[in-house]
């Protein structure tokens, strides 16, 4: 497969995952706003920006309308949903012949839908429905990809992109939510009921990962921060947990290494294996004390894996590749 094609597939997938994540965060925050006093709102939006790793604008971001506008339809904001969908489509368009027609049609339809809707229409009809459609559209795309594209190298690059983005974004989201927690930890023991507001915050975190129901199945509706951290970081079965993502990243990278079987892939495999193994054997009690450092490290590992993928498969130095080619030919 062409290196450029791998690059396009990888980023197509990352941008879609990002669009879905952003849509879910906005949706959850709009929903939770209904249960809250307005003085918390500004703070909440600020935290949303932080968890998306975008600088919070100095002015004009005090109401839900403006924030939603900026994060959804503002094409000048590179992190907005419309920008992500456009970027995903641009990447797909460059590899139009590599993905199935069904995949392209779904993505193109979603893009046209997005372009056709404007903020007022969306806001005054039903933002929740719009955002839910958006998430569904991305999930439908993933389903179509699984069902119509050969599960070959390109498909694995799509998976790597999705799960690196997911692990990275989930780590950032957890980090923002647990920032205050570590300082207050002494006051809050697991047996003490958190107050009403905190309860909403933690449920909000779970919902931001579509994890509320899945969490309850494991721990019942007993909402405890440490258990939430355990679930979103270390659960092996839940598809949005960091451990699950790390497993998928490693699987996909192993498949890619097998299919390309040309060069040394040890660095990228070692990095992916290390993250995954660490998460496999981790205990939440050992990390909750300095969870910030832990999550920071996860994000750095994701970036390192990303760099290693590019070094190995995409922007590798030509001199070395020619030597190998020569060796193979003689």
């Amino acid at each position, binding site marked *: *497969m*062409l*290196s*450029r*094609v*791998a690059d396009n597939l990888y980023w197509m997938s990352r941008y879609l995952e990002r669009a879905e994540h952003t849509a879910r965060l906005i949706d959850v925050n709009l929903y939770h706003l209904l249960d809250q006093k307005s003085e918390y709102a500004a703070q909440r939006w600020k935290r949303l920006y932080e968890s998306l790793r975008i600088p919070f604008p100095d002015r004009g971001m005090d109401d839900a309308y403006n924030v939603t506008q900026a994060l959804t339809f503002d094409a000048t904001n590179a992190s907005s949903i419309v920008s992500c969908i456009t970027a995903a489509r*641009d990447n797909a*368009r*460059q590899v*139009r*012949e590599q993905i199935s*027609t069904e995949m*392209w*049609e779904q993505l*193109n*339809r979603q893009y*046209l839908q997005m372009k056709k809707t404007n903020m007022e229409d969306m806001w005054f009809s039903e933002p929740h429905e719009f955002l839910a459609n958006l998430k569904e559209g991305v999930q439908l795309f993933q389903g179509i990809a699984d069902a119509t594209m050969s599960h070959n*190298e390109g498909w694995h690059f799509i998976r790597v992109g999705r799960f690196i983005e997911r692990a990275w974004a989930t780590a950032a989201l957890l980090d923002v939510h647990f920032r205050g927690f570590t300082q207050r930890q002494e006051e809050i023991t697991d047996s003490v009921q958190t107050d009403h507001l905190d309860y909403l915050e933690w449920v909000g975190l779970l919902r931001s990962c579509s994890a509320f129901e899945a969490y309850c199945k494991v721990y019942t509706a007993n909402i405890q921060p440490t258990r939430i951290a355990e679930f979103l970081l270390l659960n092996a079965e839940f598809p949005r947990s960091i451990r699950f993502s790390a497993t998928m990243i490693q699987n996909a990278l192993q498949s*890619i290494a097998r*299919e*390309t*079987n*040309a*060069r040394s892939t040890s660095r990228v495999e070692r990095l992916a294996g290390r993250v995954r193994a660490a998460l496999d054997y981790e205990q939440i009690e050992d990390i909750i004390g300095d969870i910030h450092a832990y999550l920071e490290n996860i994000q750095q590992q994701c970036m390192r894996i990303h760099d290693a993928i590019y070094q190995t*498969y*995409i922007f590798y130095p*030509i001199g070395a*590749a*020619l030597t*190998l*080619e020569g060796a193979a030919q003689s």
Partner: protein
Amino acid sequence: MLLSNTPGSFTLPPPFSGYSLDGAYDEMFHADSKPRQPYQKLYHRLLEMPLDILQQRQQAADMAFLNQGITFTVYGNDEGTERIWPYDLLPRIITSEEWETIEKGLAQRITALDLFLNDIYHEEHILADGVIPRALVYSCRHLRRQMRGWRVPHDRYITIVGTDLVRLPDGQFAVLEDNLRVPSGVSYMLTNREVMKRVLPSLIDSYGVKPIGHYGQALLSALTSLAPIGRADITTVLLTPGVYNSAYYEHTFLARQMGIELVEGRDLIVHNNIVYMRTTGGLRRVDVIYRRIDDDYVDPLAFHPQSTLGVPGLFNAYRAGNVTLANAIGTGVADDKAIYAYVPAIIRYYLQEDPILPNVETYLLTDQPQQRYVLENLDTLVVKAVGESGGYGMLIGPYSTVSQREEFRRRIRSNPRNYIAQPTLALSHAPCFVKGQIEPRHVDLRPFILYGDRITIVPGGLTRVALKRGSLIVNSSQGGGSKDTWVLDM
């Protein structure tokens, strides 16, 4: 052959009430407004079919194009550069006898033009024998000196051709243009058929229509047949200028149809005169390149030094015989519009045969008497720049203003070699579904010819439509559309 616009004296039943006949050939109706035999079934279906059903089918077709992202890019247009190419629902029908003539005529023409290119880049017999003036060939903008005296793989210069045909008032097909560089449009031919099969399945079924779906396979086998000799396990790629090129959709379409990699210049590197592509599994050698990039841009070291689309060193690898480019470099000399006037002579010279498909009458402006005639009659003629395509650089006399004619008069005088003139042709018209009724629109026909180890022409081609009433310009870049083209089984 001048355009006449006297309305027919017949009134047809709805949905044809807006239909009028004039001096041009009508694809559907005889001059007495009776439908021609091959169109009778379609005619009766349209009389029976309620207009809103037709409207629904048209919308379904438009949606299919939009959702599939079948678009082309308009240059110099700010509001969104992607547009769908208007598709007209009604098929254009060609009988098998008509097709037989077209097929023979095209094969003859392509064979002769390929021999001509070979001759021009080697012995120049045709110039020595005085059939074509030397000065005319040497002043072609697309003549490539770098190709002199070097034998291209398998001696094949033109592999992919899209020839523009028009139907004259007497019903005969004539060649309007040879496109021997990087002709486009074949993806629309194929997609139009797919859409037709989806929206009007019973109609196409009731006619026996020759299939065209094997084009991709035929193209791939033509390309691989030209691989450098002695290479096993041939790797063929399609080289595109990238996503911003107006025909990008087509490039992706063809790569997919053939199952080959679609590469950009930045995906290829040349080392020791061997071309490689950069893959996730390392560098892989490339043998045949179907290039959709103009000569000027393929290699910044050999041609346009500012080009970032091409591959540095590609031309040397080509000259070393390590890679095949299709079409070959320098084929544009044979589709220069002034050389066009000599194609009948070229056919007679190389094949000792009379041309099967006639040319359109063409005035060469380097010839004084012809130039004088053209300058005096600019308001009835079409003037074209010799090296241009896509409907750019043209003057259409009957539709021009005084100042436009002045401008062309000045241009012709200062550079007569750069222009030719032709009579304004009354292109044939075909029924089109426009704004809720059926009206005649001018059409042409671009069949696609493949020449690898032998000539293959898939039956049909792209029928382009001038969607503005009375307009003669069918180019996609200038408001044209297209329709499915049926060659009947018998």
